[in-house]
């Protein structure tokens, strides 16, 4: 049986992301706080929250807002059953390395102040331990005793250790809005592109990866942002960052050549990761013919890579249930395995590594009948016109 699915070209229209890509240049826009207040006041969730305050007759207790003071580090105490054990390696390898440490990045000591005037740390013990240690090592000119070194304390007056415990949880995750993977990537890219700062090889590598994707009109964007409606956008930043330059170049080139009208589904990255890493040891090549035929297969059988991926998830559930008697956890290797098994079932002739084809050797039989029947009948049952 010969492979006779054909890829049909889709008319390309200019992608707006080329011009509005937020990674390309910062907006340079600086807004005042009024802008943010205006946004809150227009937001439905915010309005509901305000309504509950009014209905409960509650107002903000201004006295509870933390106060700040420059205070001697020697006055700070650490309650070990509130904070974690000191992680010395975190201080040595993450905060204090000579090329990393920047006093300007230190956060104030967050603490409670008891009615007896005792300061008890509720966060930032690693920061204050590091600066005290650096003073102790004689590395802070003009300061010989870390105990007398005045450091910003940000404190709440209370005797409640329960408050301290709760506050520690909030400052360390629960209740705080973490920086997204996208924001971290964007910061790295801006540091290289806008600030022209190239001293951090990790930031340079991230910018290079984004540039490779952009060359093929593929764009990382924030999850749930307004940009995801545009073609070529993707949100799975951690998977993208885990790819090599070659893997990004090949996957994004394929997307832009064949599916330029769609968003990038993350399965694309896993598929090309496995192509690059598993074809070479098997002395196989990802040939232009293979890439075109795989595009034809996706287009004809699934319409889109996202629908292929959804089908793969179902196939894996059925496969593991039949083989093991239970539904096993998802495995990202399945995308490439299922795609190339389908390729062979439809008569694909290009050489494929056995390591991909044979790991789960009859996965393909678990695709829906309306897909498999197309291979058996070698015909597409519904005409497009």
């Amino acid at each position, binding site marked *: 049986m010969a492979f006779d699915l054909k890829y049909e070209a889709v008319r390309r229209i200019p992608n707006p992301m080329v011009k509005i890509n937020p990674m390309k240049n910062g907006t340079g826009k600086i807004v005042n706080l009024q802008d943010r207040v205006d946004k809150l006041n227009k937001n439905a*969730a915010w309005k509901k929250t305000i309504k509950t305050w009014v209905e409960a007759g509650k107002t903000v207790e201004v006295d509870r807002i933390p106060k700040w003071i420059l205070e001697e580090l020697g006055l700070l105490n650490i309650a070990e059953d509130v904070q974690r054990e000191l992680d010395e390696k975190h201080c040595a390898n993450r905060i204090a390395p000579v090329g990393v440490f920047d006093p300007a990045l230190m956060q104030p000591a967050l603490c409670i102040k008891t009615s007896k005037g005792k300061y008890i740390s509720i966060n930032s013990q690693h920061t204050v331990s590091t600066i005290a240690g650096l003073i102790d090592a004689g590395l802070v000119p003009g300061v010989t005793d870390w105990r007398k070194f005045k450091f910003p304390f940000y404190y709440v007056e209370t005797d409640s250790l329960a408050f301290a415990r709760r506050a520690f949880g909030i400052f360390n995750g629960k209740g705080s809005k973490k920086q997204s993977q996208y924001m971290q990537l964007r910061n790295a890219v801006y540091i290289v592109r806008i600030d022209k700062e190239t001293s951090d090889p990790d930031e340079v590598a991230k910018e290079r990866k984004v540039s490779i994707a952009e060359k093929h009109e593929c764009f990382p964007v924030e999850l749930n942002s307004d940009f995801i*409606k545009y073609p070529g956008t993707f949100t799975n930043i951690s998977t993208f960052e885990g790819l090599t330059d070659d893997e990004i170049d090949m996957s994004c080139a394929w997307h832009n050549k064949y599916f330029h009208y769609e968003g990038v589904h993350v399965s694309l990255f896993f598929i090309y990761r496995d192509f690059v890493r598993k074809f070479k040891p098997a002395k196989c090549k990802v040939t232009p013919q293979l890439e075109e035929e795989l595009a034809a297969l996706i287009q004809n059988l*699934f319409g889109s890579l996202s*629908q292929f991926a959804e089908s793969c998830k179902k196939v894996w559930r059925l496969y593991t249930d039949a083989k093991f008697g239970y539904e096993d956890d998802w495995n990202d290797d399945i995308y490439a395995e299922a795609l190339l098994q389908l390729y062979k079932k439809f008569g694909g002739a290009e050489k494929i590594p056995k390591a991909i084809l044979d790991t789960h050797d009859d996965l393909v039989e678990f695709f829906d009948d*309306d897909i498999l029947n197309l291979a058996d009948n070698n015909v*597409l049952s*519904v005409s497009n016109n």
Partner: protein
Amino acid sequence: MYYLYLITSLRGRAGFGITSDYKERNQQYASHSGDIVKFSYIYGGLSTHAKTVESTIKRQYIDNIWMVDDWKTEWLKDGISMSDLKSYVDDLVNNRHYRIQVVAEDYDFTQGMLDNNQ
């Protein structure tokens, strides 16, 4: 066979959805709304292609989706007509070679299953 339907609400709002059983789905709309509701158009074809078209509407036609607070409905906002939606879907199907086609117009469940697409 799988179906993408375009629906017109009783007050004229255009909407969309997918189903493997258009008769049962239409009957559910009637049950919830207390009246006969029309599927203005039903497209039939490969399940994967019908699902792709639906997800494309949700993702790329998002500016025309009726939002209730942060809830993205499967209905279009005021001012977007059934004609607009039909035209958008037809363009998708034709330009992107999706293998679905119109199999019924102005359908409601009282017509039963249609002979030509069972």
